[in-house]
């Protein structure tokens, strides 16, 4: 009777309590050994995951006051989501890795502590000026102070199949778009199905294309100088470039096979495609798996370019979250300082292929003769150093809801490459849609 139903009810409550208990116990970080423990959420998968674990183990072993616990939280999108949700629930970690597209959002959020201040306040001195300019500029505030800690930075490279190059009668790796296109046309005329394939199209073909030629991607120094920035990347040269590529989809001289990077890597490594434009983070995989002669090179520039600047970076940085107990921030500062040391940068670079962050680290690698055996990596660094100090157009891109802005561009690009829109129409639509997104973001964060 009533007892029966109440017993059912109490069973339910018991299960509820158990569940809650189980849920609770999954979250507490351990500091049983008396060390101050901090949490770091990251998105490094596969091989890099193991390297992160090793890095953390090295830090933990190097001193006995602090302990870092690193957790893999899925890809960048998912990890950012869980960070946001955790923050709203008061469960955020101390350090979180966020991709470069999330920079402005993180800066405007009010949920983070600037890295330079954290280190200063805890008595650590890092020579930030030693950092490679484009890496530093992407994440500095208006006073050139670093808001987040660069961790895994990459830059795009052109990977080229030398066998195909020779077969087409070229002796030098093309340095200009004009030469590259000549090669691609020749290449497919010889029967090859796929000339050029690109990863991260917006980053390579738009952001970097404009940065390298000192043209703005958006006004207000690509968004650095104001939330009211507007997209302007559909300039005549950009339109001309995309036109050339879109015309070649039919012959395969330029092939579009999907967003992201799967298609490009598979295409290049399997020798289906002769040229790939991809991030430096693909270097390791290509070195291991490509069974043909190939060479990494800088992205091509226009033949009549008056100015050739640095490429801009991609990748992610480490952000420090507010809201943790005071004492724990000492541990955070110690860890960040550890990561900032050139030895760590060199070690990280050698194990993952991500760029060394500072000139000191770069020089150290040079002195070791590392680049003699690994010329590809040096190309990437040189591409960042080229052209002197970054201009307003090549510091990076700092826009709100940036992933969405990029998505709208990819959307329109797909229409263009699929023959559903002209280049002018498509890029104008992308700019308009992107601007709508930017205005929404601006409204959201303006008081």
């Amino acid at each position, binding site marked *: *009777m*009533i007892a*029966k*139903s109440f017993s*059912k009810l109490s069973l*339910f409550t018991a*299960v*509820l309590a158990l*569940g*809650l208990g*189980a*849920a*609770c116990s*999954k*979250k507490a970080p351990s500091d049983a050994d008396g060390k101050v423990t901090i949490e770091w959420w990251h998105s490094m998968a*596969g*091989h890099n995951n193991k390297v992160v674990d090793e890095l953390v183990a090295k830090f933990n072993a190097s001193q006995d006051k602090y302990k870092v616990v690193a*957790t*893999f*939280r*899925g890809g960048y999108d*998912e*990890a950012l*989501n*869980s960070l946001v*949700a*955790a923050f*709203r*629930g*008061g*469960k955020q970690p101390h350090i979180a890795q966020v991709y470069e597209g999330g920079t402005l959002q993180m800066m405007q959020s009010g949920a983070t502590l600037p890295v330079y201040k954290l280190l200063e306040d805890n008595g650590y001195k890092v020579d930030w000026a030693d950092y490679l300019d484009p890496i530093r500029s992407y994440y500095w505030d208006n006073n050139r102070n670093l808001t987040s800690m660069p961790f895994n930075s990459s830059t795009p490279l052109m990977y080229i199949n030398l066998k195909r190059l020779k077969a087409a009668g070229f002796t030098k790796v093309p340095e200009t778009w004009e030469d590259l296109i000549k090669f691609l046309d020749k290449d497919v005329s010889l029967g090859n199905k796929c000339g050029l394939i690109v990863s991260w199209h917006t980053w390579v073909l738009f952001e970097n294309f404009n940065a390298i030629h000192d043209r703005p991607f958006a006004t207000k120094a690509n968004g650095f100088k104001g939330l009211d920035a507007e997209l302007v990347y559909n300039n005549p040269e950009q339109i001309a470039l995309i036109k050339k590529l879109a015309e070649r989809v039919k012959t395969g001289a330029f092939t579009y096979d999907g967003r*992201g*990077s*799967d298609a490009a*890597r*598979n295409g290049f490594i*399997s020798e289906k495609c002769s040229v790939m434009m991809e991030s430096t983070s*693909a270097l390791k*995989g290509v070195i291991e*798996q490509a069974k043909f002669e190939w060479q990494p090179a800088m992205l091509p520039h226009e033949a009549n370019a008056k100015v050739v600047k640095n490429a801009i970076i991609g990748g992610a940085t480490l952000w420090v979250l507010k809201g943790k107990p005071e004492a724990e921030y000492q541990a955070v500062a110690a860890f960040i300082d550890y990561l900032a040391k050139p030895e760590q940068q060199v070690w990280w670079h050698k194990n993952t292929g991500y760029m060394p962050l500072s000139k000191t680290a770069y020089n150290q690698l040079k002195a070791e003769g590392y680049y003699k055996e690994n010329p590809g990596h040096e190309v990437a660094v040189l591409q960042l150093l080229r052209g002197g100090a970054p201009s307003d157009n090549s510091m990076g891109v700092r826009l709100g809801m940036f992933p969405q802005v990029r998505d709208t561009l990819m959307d329109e690009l797909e229409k263009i490459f699929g023959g559903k829109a002209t280049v002018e129409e498509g890029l104008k639509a992308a700019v308009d849609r992107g601007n709508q997104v930017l205005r929404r973001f601006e409204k959201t964060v303006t008081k």
Partner: protein
Amino acid sequence: MVEKARGLNFLAYVVLILGILVVGFPIYISFVAASHDVSVFVSGQIPLLPGPHLIENISYAWTHGDLGSQIINSLIIAGGITLGKISISILAAFAITYFDFKFRQTAFWIVFITLMLPVEVRIVPTYQVVADIFSPVNTILGLFGLHMNFSLSLLDSYFGLTVPLIASATATFLFRQFFLTVPDELAEASKIDGASPMTFFRKILFPLSKTNIAALTVITFVFGWNQYLWPLLITTDAKMRPIMVGIKQLIPAPDDPPTWNIAMAGSLVTILPPILVVVLMQRWFIKGLIENEK
């Protein structure tokens, strides 16, 4: 049928066989793909007949994709949802049909409204509730000027994975429909005998409901096993992921060669349990569905 038209019968069988082939084709191909070596995909050849590597691929997928612990997660989730859903719904349906209490109609409509709110529609706010289950309480108290700050996150927990999926109108509705067809005499007789409502429930109603319960078990188990979006959103800890989400990790990634053989081997393991449940419990499952048709 009425005519013994040979032609029509023959046509019928042909269509049936075609149907079975179309329906079964994808699984056959995945079976074939799962039994080959990865080189077959790299070279771009399409295998149509099985190869020799099935066991090898399955065990690779099992260890590499950590399928074992994911299957356990899926079992816990599917089992938990099934148990929870059926027990809560049958009791609620019992209350709604066999009692007359204040708010009965309201309760019914509240339950019914959930038919109109599938997870995908309320996903972002449900996520927030799961991220901090006390947020509703806090907000309501806040309206009265009481500022508490309890907080409890159910992300990455079995509780968060199962409970939000437990209360749905379908099961309650199904039971309600069924209870309405149970003859009144049974309940009257119980009352005359002086039995309590719960005794009636235990001794008469529950046994009568067995077919429905069986049908619902199949439906709910499959539903729970196949959950994708919800676990995808609320878990970031790989150890908490059910197999439907984990299987995505097996799909060939940028740095790997096209290991579709492994992905397909893993997929076969993933779909086996629900298929077994459906096939083995077919009899009750169909009976249960059809009974409520009438």
